[in-house]
């Protein structure tokens, strides 16, 4: 047994013969070459320069799997125990690459293509054509502007959720009942919410909410008749579903705050408001930021309620980016343009989320 090297972390000594290392390298590079050759051959067949009788891309897939196995095995052969450690991560990394990175690359290829499924010529690369179309597309910009409004509504949702969480954290009667009751909307599918509330309860003749509105003096209640009211109604239905989610996160945070802190503040003469604003709220910032960020991610996907209730109307007032892409993609089979819109949206989301997380980090850093 070797008595040199990293004795703390190495379990078995590696005695790697040059032959073994060479074999390891050979299978890695050999399988990589095979993968490259098969992929090249298939690409050339698609381009019409060669005909090897391939009917699907499976040979390339099999070559990729072979290369992945050889790469993993080669790590052990060439690096011994270090290689075995790599094996804990490498298969997962390769899996992620296959399922995320490759589709993303193919997605980018489609995003820069003119591809309408009904076109007899199929997919055609069109460079920045889709970007130019997007630049001049009032429907997309309108949907993006709507998303800003929808996202801003999270501030109000957060305030309500915080208030509810404070109430449920207090010693009130039937606390457990209220906790479950307030969670109920979260358990409903947004599609069910669309039909139950948007289409049934808000039905303008017989819907109970319309009747209530009439009883309260609104002669001709219309929840989706004008742009502003429709947008507000969509916001409310969406909020009703997801406020419980924020509420439950904040409640968990509130329960984690030691009671002694509030008691100490009270002993120091803090009022209820100061106790909240100077003690509870700052302590809740990390949880709050997390809740808001996750809520924002949910919000950016908002589509189902809109598709079911208003189809983006009236006149695009309630359209979200996702509901617009849904129409562009599903109803109009405009795969290339729809993919580009989704990609641009992804980039915008990544940028916005990065900025927000940086800001959140700064806000939550102890002063």
């Amino acid at each position, binding site marked *: 047994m070797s008595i040199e090297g990293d004795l703390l972390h190495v379990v078995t000594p590696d005695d790697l013969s040059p032959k073994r290392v060479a074999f390891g390298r050979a299978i890695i590079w050999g399988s990589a070459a095979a993968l490259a050759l098969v992929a090249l051959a298939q690409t050339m067949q698609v381009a019409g320069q060669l005909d090897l009788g391939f009917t699907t891309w499976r040979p390339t897939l099999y070559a990729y799997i072979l290369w992945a196995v050889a790469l993993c095995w080669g790590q052990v052969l060439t690096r011994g125990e270090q290689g075995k450690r790599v094996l804990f991560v490498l298969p997962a990394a390769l899996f992620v690459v296959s399922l995320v990175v490759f589709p993303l690359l193919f997605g980018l290829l489609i995003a820069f293509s*003119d591809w*309408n*499924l*009904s*076109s*007899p*010529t*199929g997919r055609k690369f069109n460079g920045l054509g889709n970007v130019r179309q997007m630049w001049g597309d009032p*429907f997309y910009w309108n949907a993006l502007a709507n998303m800003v409004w929808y996202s801003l509504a999270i501030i109000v949702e957060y305030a309500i959720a915080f208030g509810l969480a404070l109430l449920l954290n207090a010693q009130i009667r039937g606390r457990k009942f209220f906790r479950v009751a307030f969670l109920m909307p979260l358990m409903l599918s947004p599609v069910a919410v669309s039909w139950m509330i948007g289409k049934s309860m808000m*039905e*303008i*003749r017989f819907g109970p909410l319309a009747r209530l509105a009439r009883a309260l003096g609104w002669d*001709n*209640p*219309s*929840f*989706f*008749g004008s*742009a502003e009211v*429709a947008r507000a109604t969509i916001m409310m239905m969406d909020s009703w579903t997801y406020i419980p989610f924020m509420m439950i996160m904040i409640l968990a945070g509130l329960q984690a705050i030691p009671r002694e802190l509030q008691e100490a503040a009270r002993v120091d003469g803090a009022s209820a408001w100061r106790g909240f604003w100077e003690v509870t709220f700052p302590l809740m910032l990390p949880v709050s930021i997390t809740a808001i960020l996750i809520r924002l991610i949910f919000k950016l996907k908002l589509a189902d309620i809109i598709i079911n*209730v*208003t*189809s*983006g*109307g*009236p*006149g*695009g*007032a309630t359209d979200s980016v996702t509901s617009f892409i849904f*129409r562009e993609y*599903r*109803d*109009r*089979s*405009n*795969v290339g343009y729809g993919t580009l819109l989704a990609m641009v949206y992804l980039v915008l989301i990544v940028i916005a989320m990065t900025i927000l997380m940086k800001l959140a980090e700064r806000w939550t850093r102890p002063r």
Partner: protein
Amino acid sequence: MKVELYNHVVRSGLTRRRLMQGAASIGSLAAMGGLGLSRSALAQDDVRAAILAIPGVGAGSPTDADWQKVGEMTLAATRANVAEGEFAGVELTFMGLNNQNLHNFLFRGFLKPWEAYTGAKINWIDLAQADYNPRLQQAIATGTVDFDIIEMGAPFEGDTASKGLLDEMPDWVKAQIDMDDYVGYLKAPVGTWAGKTYRISIDGDCHTFAYRKDYLSDAAISAATGMTEAPTTWQQVQAFSNAVKGQKDPLTGLDAYGFLDPLKGWGGFGFYFLEDRASAYAKHPDDPAWLFDPDTMKPRVNNPAWVQAIQDVMDTMPVLPPDQINADPGTTAFQQFLAGTGAMICWWGDVGSMARTSDSSVVGDVVGFSINPGSDKVYNTKTAAWETPATPNFAPNMAYLGWGVYVTNRVSGDEKKRKAAWSAAAHLGGKDLSLWMAAYPSGFQPYRNSHFNFDEWQAAGYDRAFVEDYLGSNADSYNHPNAAIEPRIPGIFQYYSVAEDELAKGFGGTYKSAQETADAIAAAWEKITDQIGRDSQIALYKASLGM
């Protein structure tokens, strides 16, 4: 027949006594040999009467055993063209729908005796309605068509026949299914491309005009509108809708409304409802085209005829029910018209059948039907001028052309397989079998002239008045000489879908006028045409119009 319609018939009018009467009359029809009919015609009548007795109107919903029995009894046409065991070893794949456990479920039963006789085997791909279009489009776009026979709507012929994906119908099939029996609008050019026939129809579809008769007999309303007869032109409909404002609905006592326009999109299907108005103005009897110019694919949607239709809708908005901006066609039909709001609507046959059959309908006893309204004036694109014909111009909207069965080109290279595929398709589209599908729950509507022989329905046990009412307006629309036929070009629903978006902006006030709205639709349509390929669209549009 639609399920709900059949259920209604069973639930309401049909007693055991009546069922016995029906059975007796079928028996007597079969027994009577002295009507001067030829032996074969008589044998066919026997079959028709006999299959209509399976399971018997009022004897419960048909089951798989019934479907198989009907399939067996209607196999004579197949026997005449195919030898027993001729297709042994042939395997076919059939792609269709599984809506309401009908469609493919029936086809399986009907084709079981066919499989036993011919020796062929059929594998099934069942799809939900919502999955159908994406599945089909992706199969086409990625070159992975994996079915030999497909149940498909005629609007998709542009996406399939135009790309050479379908197999041309052999002449023996045309004879076997008696294509001359099809109602007018389902005859060529529908089902054909560039002179070749591809479709075996199994269904029919069109919009008809439904109106409330009590709005015409109510003293106060008639005093306000001056009308006691149903309006027959859009000009009259407009006048009625404006005049009825302020009156009370005779049934519900709530505010009365005239014609119900759906102002919200419906995944492309909402555009059919603007077409209902526009076809009367835009479909000139001398010109088969009415949506695009066939030589240039320039949209006609912003010509004066279409702008008039959009303007009509805009003019009527102040007298529509509140929140109509958020009403799609489903709302106008099922939540408004059938529930007692509004006096008139254009819709598919469902409204006609559900008016009497749906539990939520309150208008069953007061509803009347006719073909879509016409117009006092019609626009002639050749002269770019309005014309005023001696009688109003009618152009019923053949919205969505019904389901058909098609054979794909996967079988074209193998004559045995090809014959097997066409034989299976022809069995499903057979004349006698189709009568059974029209009379029992199948999801399909009548589509042959022989389906409108009310004696057969009466003999089977149906209430004659009910059947005549239900079928009459459909028959008149189907056979209208100036029917507005849907263009079967690739991506037709893309055009409809984008038009819905622009119309929503027009109705929502984003655009200043009907003309501006129509121009926006035309611009969006031009983009789609350019994207799909103008030259190919022109060629395909002409082919679809039979030009």
